[in-house]
């Protein structure tokens, strides 16, 4: 019988009228990787923030290593050997790695000696766990994968035996995520206990020993990972059966609606991000663009949708040319039948402090149906929003609610409803299910297939290879700004993976 590292008994926590956690019991064995899975808003992060002392539970008790613990502040948790890697990193952007690591654990009042000590301790940790980072690098210059490493080092430097990771792979590329998992395995070997919060079933199956499922603030089940299945976990999470595989019929592609020829785009630093890309999307097909994040997909989307100017190249939309190097602006393209679901719904797709009904028509607000002379027709806008809420099952069904208060999945549905209900000819979709829960993913995938079956041309960019493979009728792989290969949906994950890693076309085919 393994020792118990942490036991939570009857934890409850409310924020105003919202019960984030209800009477939660949880036991975590020492030296294991314990997954906590649940949809967005199920209360996972709240529970872990209570364990880390960031919030205080309204009721319940926490035992650490079999003894009742009073955790009122993060420093209490740190003293008990609990470390946490937050979803949004808790790093000071313009500090060096070293300064971030010692912050709050400096020791003496003067920094000289503590910095010297931290440097050698950091070197030891980096060596022991394979967590190389330049201690003098400034955080904002580091890629997110390395920033996360700094967060892990911070916890280890404070002597954490129990490490909580909140959605650690949300910001990572698949390769970075794999590396992280190897690090976690190694930490486990060293006897550390790891709590992994995620909503990705695949990660749970790949790395955890035990898994607990949360739904709407309650703990619904705890299983040994080896004794459960993806299907069972998905059903426990959502509370009903979920189709993990998208059902779709044969595509019947028609004429070319979107045609891109020799498109070249540079980013703000002048680096070529899209290099001479050509592609066609026909009516009634979904063309997926696969690739590791940062290989030019974002810039390609920005250029096609008129958000960013292209250097050279031509684009035709339904037979008509689009002037991408100059005057094309998103409003004009929208009017011509191109709808755009941006990759980043928080910063581009939505204005979070606005009410839902305002976001549900933003970008189309010049259309006569939303106007009443020079004024907005508030009644019409709200009626329109209510219709979309109904049709897309957006929850809570309140068009006056601030958009920031919807969960990620429902926010994404607001964007999708806005763009799809315009009945566009061409739909450009970036990362449709990033940070979206399982139930909503199923819905969004079905809607995309519906759009295809209605004869729309759909261009889909996603870093989730599974999503690309299950939705696309044709798959283009981007690497270093170029399209390096085209495959059918039957292409294996390994084959696409090689293309994504930049292995030459011929070698990949062998």
């Amino acid at each position, binding site marked *: 019988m393994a020792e118990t590292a942490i036991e939570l008994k009857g934890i409850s926590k409310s924020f105003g009228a919202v019960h984030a956690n209800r009477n939660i019991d949880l036991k975590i064995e020492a030296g294991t990787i314990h997954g906590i899975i649940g949809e967005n808003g199920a209360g996972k992060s709240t529970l872990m923030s209570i364990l880390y002392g960031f919030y205080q539970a309204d009721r319940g008790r926490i035992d650490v290593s079999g003894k009742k613990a009073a955790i009122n502040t*993060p420093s209490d948790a740190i003293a008990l050997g609990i470390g946490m890697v937050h979803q949004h990193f808790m790093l000071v952007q313009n500090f060096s790695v070293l*300064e971030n690591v010692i912050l709050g654990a400096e020791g003496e009042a003067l920094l000289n000696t503590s910095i010297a000590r931290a440097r050698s301790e950091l070197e030891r940790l980096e060596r022991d766990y394979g967590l190389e980072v330049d201690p003098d690098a400034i955080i904002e210059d580091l890629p997110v994968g390395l920033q996360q490493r700094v967060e892990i080092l911070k916890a280890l430097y404070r002597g954490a035996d129990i490490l909580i990771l909140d959605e650690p792979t949300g910001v990572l590329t698949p390769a970075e995520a794999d590396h992280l998992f190897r690090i976690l395995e190694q930490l486990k070997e060293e006897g550390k206990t790891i709590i992994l919060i995620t909503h990705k079933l695949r990660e749970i199956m790949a790395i955890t020993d035990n898994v607990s499922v949360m739904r709407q603030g309650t703990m619904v089940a705890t299983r040994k990972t080896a004794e459960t299945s993806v299907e069972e976990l998905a059903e426990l999470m959502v509370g009903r059966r979920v189709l993990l595989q998208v059902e779709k019929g044969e595509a019947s592609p028609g004429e070319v609606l979107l045609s891109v020829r020799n498109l070249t785009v540079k980013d703000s630093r002048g680096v070529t991000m899209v290099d001479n890309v050509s592609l066609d999307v026909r009516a009634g097909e979904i063309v997926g663009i696969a690739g590791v994040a940062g290989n030019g997909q974002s810039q390609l989307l920005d250029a096609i949708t008129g958000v960013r100017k292209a250097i050279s190249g031509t684009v035709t939309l339904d037979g008509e040319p689009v002037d991408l190097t100059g005057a094309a602006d998103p409003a004009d393209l929208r009017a011509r039948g191109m709808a755009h679901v941006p990759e980043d719904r928080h910063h581009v797709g939505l204005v979070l402090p606005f009410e839902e009904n305002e976001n549900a028509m933003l970008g189309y607000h010049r259309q006569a149906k939303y106007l009443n002379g020079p004024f907005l027709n508030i009644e019409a806008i709200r009626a329109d929003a209510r219709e979309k809420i109904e049709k897309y099952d957006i929850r809570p069904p309140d068009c006056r609610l601030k958009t920031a208060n919807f969960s990620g999945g429902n926010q994404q549905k607001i964007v999708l409803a806005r763009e799809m209900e315009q009945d566009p000819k061409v739909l450009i979709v970036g990362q449709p299910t990033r940070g979206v829960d399982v139930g909503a993913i199923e819905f969004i995938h079905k809607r995309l297939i519906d759009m295809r079956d209605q004869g729309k041309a759909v261009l889909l960019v996603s870093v989730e290879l599974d999503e690309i493979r299950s939705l696309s009728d044709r798959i283009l792989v981007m690497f270093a700004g170029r399209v390096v290969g085209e495959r059918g949906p039957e292409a294996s994950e390994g084959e696409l993976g090689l293309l994504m890693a930049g292995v030459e076309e011929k070698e990949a085919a062998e």
Partner: protein
Amino acid sequence: MDFFHSLILVLDSTVRLSIPLLLAALAGLYSERSGVFDIGLEGKMLAGAFAAGAAAAVTGSAWAGLGAAMLISVFLALVHGFASITNRGNQIVSGVAINFIAAGSTIILGQAWFRQGGRTPSLPGDARFGAIELPFAEAVRDVPILGEIYSELISGHSLLTYAAFLLVPFTWWVLFRTRFGLRLRAVGENPAAVDTAGVSVSWLRYRAVICTGILTGMAGTYLSLAQNAGFVKDMTAGRGFIALAALIFAKWKPVPVMFACLLFGFLDAFAIRIQGTPLPLVGQVPVQFMQALPYILTVVLLAGFIGKAVPPRAGGVPYVKER
């Protein structure tokens, strides 16, 4: 030689005029580096000047004046802290309120206590921070150039002047070489990082505004007990705002703050010096133009020449835990 003598005199008054700016700007630096914007430097300085003048007039001791000034400025800083840290109020509104309170109450209390139209009584030498003659100042006066620089420019200032210049390296050292400084800078950039590292955000920010109070108290004392012989109503005359401009101009760094304050002080001294005398080519320059110059300079230089001044990232934003 005549030109050199004039230059020394202008530089000498540059130092005198820079000191209140320097003390106030360093005061603002502590607060703003911790993420609490402070537009109330002006008010705290004014209240400090009044408290120093009043206490020195009553007790006859300059040190009592300094103590009273620090006390009242720290009190006002804590009011600002209570509004913006504990109650998460708008920092600009709170700062403006403190400016109004200080401007009004100093006149009312001054009139009620001393009945001299809002002034405090004129102070004798012992109740002021007088000029300190450095050793050998008289002896080397006649040595050409260096002697004059030493005896006129370096010697003959008040204790507060020397303290202000010493506070520049001291502030740098606190900020970049101590645990308190590391945490202070961190809390101004990302308070959540400090909170999750197990350090109290509120307590850190309160300590920062207390530092601000102490230094604005010194700045006020300098005005009423060193530069003048007593408090005169509205004697800060916008120096708190010029200090803020200097702070932005210097990108919240101690040593550049000193140079920015010296530059603004120099402009002021130069304006006084050329008052009434037409300049070659341009002729008579209106005194209002010279007074506006620090602000114009700040806007122009920030707009293009020295690059963007990035304030502490969490500046002006009350810290609320997520949700």
